[in-house]
């Protein structure tokens, strides 16, 4: 329910607020606002870290060093970038569809932020453990498509429009195998709550193998991960903003902080995909808990796993070539969708098997 429940923070904070003479309803609201801001801060920090990480990883993979001037090891590079973006001129081209153009970044960022609401960072650290958490994740994940289309259309620029349309086609196409792939995990866990799914992965098989769903659902994991790449527009599926053909796709016409929102959302989404893969297939926050700060370890394990996946994304990004659009669509519909449907059969068999063994 609340980010800090495990520390007893919820009653403590509410009690403290009430002690300050704040009415009960306002205390509740203030608490939520605070928790929300905490998550947004997390997203922002993640974005800063990820950008730095991306540059470093890509740099080293390409036998470069990446940023190294600003701050120690170039650590402050992204902070500087953020500050630079803040000061950039805000250009709204003359012929844009203004309301659409202006609303688009908000929508994209909203979709990204909402996803984080159901990410179980640790046994107790989750903004809102909805019992339809996974559906919520899917729903807001695809909400981004609206934002991208609005951006592409509203810009009234050829690059933007093509980029927007492509990204919608891509999001829409990869949505289907993704949803079907997630189904396998749902079948095994028997719930849609993200926290419950993680809990379903506790324990081990045969005494040594963690009960992670990836061992039962390798296919589902791979499909989901590929779809995640496509949904977030990562290489090799980065056609919507393929800079060699479309300049910057749907955000060609955006500048300054508006662009930064897109940027933020993109990195937020990248992390969210990794995090959700972790939650569903890699046992989420499960891991050894040590006596030193026991409440922190699950979070650590979660971040480690998610970051490892994020690293994989970057790895893929620096090694793979971009697909052609027809290849990309074919890949979704003619390979991933049948495979995902097959995966459902496999999962159903597994569930039956587990019931048979267990009961």
């Amino acid at each position, binding site marked *: 329910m609340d980010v800090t429940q495990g520390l007893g923070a919820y009653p403590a904070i509410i009690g403290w607020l009430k002690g300050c003479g704040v009415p009960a309803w306002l205390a509740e609201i203030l608490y939520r606002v605070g928790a*929300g801001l905490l998550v947004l801060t997390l997203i922002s920090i993640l974005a800063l870290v990820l950008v730095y990480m991306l540059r470093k990883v890509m740099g080293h993979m390409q036998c470069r060093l990446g940023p190294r001037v600003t701050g120690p090891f170039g650590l402050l590079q992204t902070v500087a970038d953020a500050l630079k973006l*803040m000061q950039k001129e805000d250009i709204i*081209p003359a012929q844009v569809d203004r309301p659409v153009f202006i609303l688009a970044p908000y929508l994209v960022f909203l979709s990204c932020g909402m996803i984080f609401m159901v990410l179980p960072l640790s046994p107790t650290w989750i903004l809102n453990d909805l019992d339809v958490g996974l559906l919520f994740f899917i729903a807001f994940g695809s909400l981004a498509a609206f934002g991208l289309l609005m951006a592409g259309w509203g810009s009234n620029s*050829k690059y933007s429009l093509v980029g927007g349309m492509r990204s919608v086609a891509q999001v*829409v196409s990869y949505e289907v195998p993704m949803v079907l792939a997630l189904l396998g995990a749902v079948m095994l866990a028997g719930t849609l709550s993200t926290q419950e799914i993680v809990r379903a992965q506790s324990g081990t098989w045969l005494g040594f193998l963690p009960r992670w769903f990836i061992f039962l659902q390798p296919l589902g994991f791979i499909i989901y991960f590929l779809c995640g790449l496509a949904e977030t527009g990562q290489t090799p599926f980065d056609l919507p903003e393929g800079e060699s053909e479309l300049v910057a796709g749907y955000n060609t016409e955006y500048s300054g902080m508006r662009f930064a*929102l897109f940027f933020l959302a993109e990195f937020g989404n990248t992390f969210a995909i990794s995090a959700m893969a972790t939650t569903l297939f890699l046992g989420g926050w499960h891991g050894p808990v040590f006596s030193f700060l026991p409440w922190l370890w699950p979070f650590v394990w979660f971040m480690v796993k998610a970051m490892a996946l994020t690293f994989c994304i970057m790895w893929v990004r620096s090694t793979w070539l971009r697909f052609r659009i027809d290849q990309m669509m074919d890949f979704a519909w003619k390979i991933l969708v049948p495979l995902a449907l097959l995966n459902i*059969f496999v999962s159903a068999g597994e569930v039956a098997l587990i019931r048979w063994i267990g009961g």
Partner: protein
Amino acid sequence: MQQDYLTLAIYPLVILGFSVFVLALAWVLRAKPPKSPVKQAPYECGIPTRGETWVRFRVAYYLYALVFVVFDVETIFLYPWAVALHRLGLFAYIEAILFILILLVGLGYAWKEGALEWK
């Protein structure tokens, strides 16, 4: 599983508030040079833009969208089934498998009819 509808209501507002705040901050901080027509022209590698931008799009996009709608809605049947799978009998298994087989036939038909070709 704990439902917190208050969070559900407040959190989107927090996100929007955050975005607005960030943009407002940028508005305060950023340079504000005078507008010029050239700067406000759409970006086309520096060449003056030609022709209509809002053109009609190729039909392939719509076809994908149609296939998507169908598949996406099917999942609303599969998800409840998946959640309740542990508690259901053999009949539910068979039904869902039939359902998926029918989906497969639909996919095959769309494939065969060329709805999945990027022409």
